[in-house]
């Protein structure tokens, strides 16, 4: 007892790597108890691997046209068939993951910090700051997101970049509201009172005390949002306002396959399956992440 009590040499601030490792280790162990969530995470991991190794996996060049092979049904040579220009749909789907992952990650990286900061600042400072920020949030929230994204994409010119900006512009308000609600609870906690007593500056309290408590629910919300982002991006692609041909964007692929849907179903159905699987995986992963990170939503 006295030995451990007087051993003063052992205490030092643990490094960042060690903290991250022990934190994520705990989450991964808990993940083992959730087979469905595990499946969601595995699909997402596969998706990212496919995006990274697209040139290795795809058997054909996604944009090379072979008109003699147009509209071939799924076969061993063309796993998902070919489209009207004879491009291999499977290769296009594989390259399409890159566009999808890129869109989802870009939107999340833009939306997460913006929503978090706006929400936490509004919730912590309260008063006029809160009123101003939340009315601005309400204004953006009141727009139907796809329509606003459409308007932005139309105004800024169609393309993947504008699609990302357009989706980001409409995706941050729910995050901000969520972060604000969390901040409102946390700012009255005793540990924040204690921090004020030992002279922590408002910025320090904001970023070191309140924001860490809001981040888990923001991450969960972002993951759940990713499914919506994929669908919105696909919708924009479908309407011709997202990624432009010949980029293999899944929504645009459905759009072009629509013309031959009755005779050559695979042209539209294959990208549809890809969208379905991906958004489902994001949804399941988000749900599981909520169970893991947020004890209030414990499984019954």
């Amino acid at each position, binding site marked *: 007892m006295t030995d*451990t009590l007087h051993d003063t040499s052992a*205490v030092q*601030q*643990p490094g960042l790597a060690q903290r991250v490792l022990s934190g994520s280790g705990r989450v991964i162990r808990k993940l083992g108890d959730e087979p469905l969530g595990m499946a969601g995470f595995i699909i997402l991991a596969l998706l990212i691997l496919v995006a990274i190794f697209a040139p290795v996996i795809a058997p054909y060049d996604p944009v090379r046209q072979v008109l003699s092979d147009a509209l071939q049904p799924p076969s061993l040579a063309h796993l998902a068939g070919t489209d009207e220009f004879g491009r291999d749909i499977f290769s296009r789907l594989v390259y399409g993951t890159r566009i999808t992952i890129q869109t989802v990650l870009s939107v999340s990286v833009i939306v997460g910090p913006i929503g978090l900061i706006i929400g936490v600042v509004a919730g912590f400072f309260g008063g006029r700051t809160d009123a101003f920020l939340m009315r601005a949030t309400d204004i953006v929230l009141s727009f139907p997101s796809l329509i606003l994204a459409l308007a932005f994409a139309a105004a800024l010119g169609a393309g993947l970049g504008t699609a990302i900006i357009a989706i980001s512009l409409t995706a941050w308000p729910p995050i901000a509201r969520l972060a604000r609600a969390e901040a409102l609870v946390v700012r009255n906690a005793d540990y924040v*009172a204690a*921090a004020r007593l*030992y002279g922590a500056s408002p910025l320090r309290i904001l970023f070191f005390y309140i924001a860490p408590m809001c981040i888990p629910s923001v991450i969960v919300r972002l993951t759940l949002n990713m499914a919506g982002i994929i669908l919105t991006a696909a919708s924009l692609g479908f309407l011709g306002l997202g990624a432009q041909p010949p980029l293999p964007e899944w929504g645009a692929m459905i759009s072009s396959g629509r013309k031959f849907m009755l005779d050559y179903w695979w042209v539209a159905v294959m990208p549809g399956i890809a969208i379905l699987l991906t958004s489902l995986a994001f949804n399941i992963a988000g749900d599981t992440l909520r169970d893991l990170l947020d004890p209030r939503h414990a499984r019954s």
Partner: protein
Amino acid sequence: MIKVENLDVVYGVNETRNHVVRSVSFEVGHGETLGIVGESGCGKSTLLRSLAGLEGGWTGSVHFNGKPVGKARNREELKLAQMVFQDPYGSLHPRHRIGTALAEPIRAMGTGDGWSQVSKALQQVGLPAHFASRFPHELSGGQRQRVAIARALILSPPILLLDEPTSALDVSIQAEVLNLLADQREERNLTYVLVSHDLSVIAHMCDRVLVMQNGIFVDELTKADLRAGTTHADYSRELFEASFL
């Protein structure tokens, strides 16, 4: 050490106006422990939070160590008085390790990185140094309250404000925490203001007790009074009879 004159705390206006603390005055000497006892909602916690500088809505004057302190405190004034909260589950940040929690006051004050003092601070409250790498949820309630006390003491304040420091704890743990507080008082010559509704805690710790009802002090008891069970007001007699039955 502490001098309070005509302290009023009012919440709300017009119909919702609630006069929580009504013009109270008292003094606490250096090294003395003052107990404030009363039922729930009598204003004792509000009074303590006003002293600490956590409540902004008070009027009157508060002097620490002969110097007046206002509602907004600068770092020197904050260093004079620290507070221990009632709920050890709510007073430590759930995502800060114990070491971080103990180093934070020093870092927030801008007087160093604080980690060098963590093991000593843990040792002083009877916890092993390796607890520094644990999270609050890995500690029991009593251990957490020890950490909270260590955190309050790490800035070496001459005054410690205790808001029911043991009422969230088991009876057996209560005694340990109270003894720890008593030891620290001896060692550092601290001045305590202890708020509680538990008369046995008050009797164990305090040199002098003020009995509070509806925002005013109705009785003042010395240690001898507490031992003999002497009271000077009806309300304090009721309180004593209710708690020593």
